[in-house]
């Protein structure tokens, strides 16, 4: 088995392909020992790797850890508040199913907001008196209400006359004579 330099450089420079067989590894190594071109290439890569390993790890700014921890605490407090506000999210989390609690919370908040607007409208902006416009509005042509003495109402399609019955509610006389 003969190897060309390109192959050696490709597969056996610094980082050996993990799937190489022992036989292949042996062949590559032998080529490397004999070939000056590949040896030079290998040396250069070795130097580059050493440079990469020699540069010191960057040191994080000292305040970074405190900054992160503070933000985690804030997020935690906010999530507790959400939990208190919305029991549905609590149940979903406990059951480990359903959408993200934040989503549930925002949906619930939107629902509460709409409910509040609706209630406010119902309480303050809904007059029970009919407006003057409604009073003068003509009735629909099919139905006319005619008042004739006792007659309550009549429709033109099916004439129906109802008499108002004067109901006499009999007073039950209970005799509780002692």
């Amino acid at each position: 088995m003969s190897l060309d330099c390109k192959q050696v450089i490709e597969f056996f420079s610094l980082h050996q392909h993990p799937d190489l067989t022992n036989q292949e590894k042996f062949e590559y190594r032998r080529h490397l020992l004999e070939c000056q071109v590949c040896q030079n290439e290998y040396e250069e890569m070795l130097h580059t790797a050493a440079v990469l390993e020699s540069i010191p790890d960057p040191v994080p700014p000292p305040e970074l850890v405190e900054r992160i921890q503070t933000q985690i605490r804030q997020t935690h407090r906010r999530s507790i508040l959400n939990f208190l506000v919305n029991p549905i999210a609590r149940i979903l989390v406990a059951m480990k199913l359903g959408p993200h609690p934040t989503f549930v919370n925002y949906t619930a908040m939107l629902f509460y907001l709409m409910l509040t607007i609706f209630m406010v409208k119902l309480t303050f902006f809904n007059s029970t008196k009919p407006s003057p416009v409604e009073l003068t509005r003509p009735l629909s042509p099919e139905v006319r209400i005619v008042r004739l003495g006792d007659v309550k109402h009549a429709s033109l399609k099916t004439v129906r006359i109802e008499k108002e019955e004067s109901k006499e509610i009999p007073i039950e006389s209970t005799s509780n004579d002692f």
Partner: protein
Amino acid sequence: MIPDEIYVQKTIEGNAEAFNELVQRHHARIYGLAYRMLGNPDDASDATQEAFLEAYKSIQSFQFQSKFLTWMYRVGINVCQQYKRKADSRERTLTSYAQDLQESTGRNANEHPDRVLLKTERDQLVQHAINQLPSKQRMVITLFYMQQMKYREIAELLDCSEGTVASRLNTAVKNLKSKLEGLSLH
């Protein structure tokens, strides 16, 4: 030492201080990763903070099948990639200007005043060379040489085969070779 996974369990149960212990333990490594990926300390700090916040919020999705640190690295890599994409669009003009300058003067970009970010010229030159690598190569170089991870761990982290890791490392070292040739080892 209490294993990370105990703290993860406590975090899931609602203990934020348990998570802060994990922050204390691992922030330097995530910062190191972010620094090499993003190339400057400010972005690295912000990305580290964002990564831990993201991890805290999605701690429920931790499966206890891998190590916490591996999972944390994955979150960190995702955040860095998002940062990189944002920064790339923001700084494309600046970078090409710096490269033009470097080519026209034949000098190293580390002599450009905007690029004076690292303490020593040598570290700066290495970081600058890494910054110029394509994202995937930069990642394997960082994880293998700076974070001292093994092929298997990198492959798991990046969802690829160990062979891919090896060949990416070879390509990356080859690309860096010409840029770092003249550097001494200390």
